[in-house]
């Protein structure tokens, strides 16, 4: 059995983010859009928070429990989109999802470390783990777009 595959899935940088998650811990601040998301089947449980100012994600935090793929990708995602314009973040989310699904994606679009999740495309069973954080981000952006001036109720 070739281990090439496994090693394309579990890259050093992924395990780094798993062990040393960035932007971890939540804020009580009401100006954040907060999204809590779960995968009841596998127990992954993640909360992310974004602050949007002038159309940019100026702050982002994440916290949760789950496997290395889901937890590291929350960390990677937070680093990737921090400081990004909303419309760019939407593009990255879209590109990322295509990539991990194994579909055509724009290799020139800068996704930072998120590019290392390309190996997930060979592990469709782990697709949900690799996208949970990005789904959460997507929902947070949706919240923002639906209600740009709100104070989050959560």
């Amino acid at each position: 059995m070739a281990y090439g595959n496994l090693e394309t899935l579990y890259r050093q940088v992924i395990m780094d983010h798993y062990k040393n998650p960035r932007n971890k811990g939540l804020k009580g601040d009401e100006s954040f859009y907060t999204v809590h998301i779960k995968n009841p089947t596998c127990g992954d449980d993640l909360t992310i928070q974004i602050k949007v100012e002038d159309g940019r994600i100026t702050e982002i935090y994440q916290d949760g429990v789950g496997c290395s793929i889901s937890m590291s990708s929350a960390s990677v995602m937070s680093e990737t989109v921090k400081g990004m314009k909303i419309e760019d973040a939407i593009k990255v989310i879209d590109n990322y999802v295509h990539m991990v699904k194994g579909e055509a994606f724009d290799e020139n679009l800068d996704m930072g470390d998120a590019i290392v999740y390309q190996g997930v495309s060979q592990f469709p069973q782990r697709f949900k783990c690799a996208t949970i954080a990005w789904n959460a981000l997507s929902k947070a952006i949706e919240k923002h777009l639906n209600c740009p001036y709100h104070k989050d109720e959560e």
Partner: protein
Amino acid sequence: MDVHSIRKDFYILVNSDLVYLDNAASSLKPKPVIDMINFYNERLGVNVHRGVYRLSHEATELYEGAREKVAKLLNCRFEEVVFTRGTSSALNLVASSLGMQIIELGDEIITSELEHHSSMLPWQNVARKKNAKLVFVPLDEDKRITVENFKKVLSDKTKVVALNYISNAMGYITPIKEIIRLAHEKGAIVIVDSAQAAPHMPIDVKDLDCDFLAFSGHKMCGPTGIGVLYGKHHLLQTMEPVEFGGDMIDTVELSCATFKETPYKFETGTPIIGGAIGLGAAIDYINSIGYDFIMQQDNILRDYMLQEMKNINGITIYNPKTDTGIVSFNIDGVHPHDAATVFDQENVAIRAGHHCAQPLMRCLNQVATIRASTYFYNTKEDIDRFIQAIHKAKAFFDSFI
């Protein structure tokens, strides 16, 4: 499309002399459907959703792929498709969840005497438990549901309308779209029993705007033990689950639990994996035949059957204006079960009984009728053999007079 090449997909039609005219009860199952059920049982055979290994992932893809096929068939969203054991189970789900939630003392539930027991009885039960009133659309002189008669019973008290799309005993097509429009003006919820419609005509739930719709796999080339409940997403969302346990939960605490989103909150325990995959294959098969062809065959065979039957003295046809390939009749003076034995001797499979429609039988003043029902694989030769069997039955029982 050529019937004779279609028939090759059905073992019994190739390898026996049987004239199968009991399609309204169950259709026969073609080879591609059987092969797909086999494929799951033999090559996969494992559980879905929770397995990280490849076989389980493949099974999950097929299972959820079948849901996608149903969604396409009905023109609805993926999450609006709940797999159930069959039509009866699906209709009961709506009544015991939504029905028990929304029906109150004095509310009215409209149904009809033309219903299959599975369409009417779940609401009879709700009405009884909630002290609500079950109201019956008066049938016209042909025993048909009409928009005019529906208007007579529709009122501000109407909360639910539960009607069939095609009657399994009379073969009538209910003017359901107009009924739904009228019911919605009163804010009522409409549940459409499509057990007979799904196998025979295209259904577009968006166009109909029905709130719920149910059908079974086994009447449309699929396996037994699988069916579908379609429900509008926002309604399914508000409904309580009726079965609790594995696979449908989000978080379980000792004193309470939260549930998954629809459709999963209604699919408790290990799903009907092989059944759903088989239904998916049946939908592919039916699409490959095409509803145009199916309806055309039903019409040709119905016209031919009625024309031939009208030439026979001493039989009574109860639905000479049937819209589909379903014909209900009796041989005068011969009990339908006695007649059925002659049909069986002639190797013609028909059904004799109340067709799960006792109220209708009472309207017809009959304990039972003989029902012949066609599907796309039937031929004019089948009808000839059926007509011959009527003659034989008449002759045989006449000999005792």
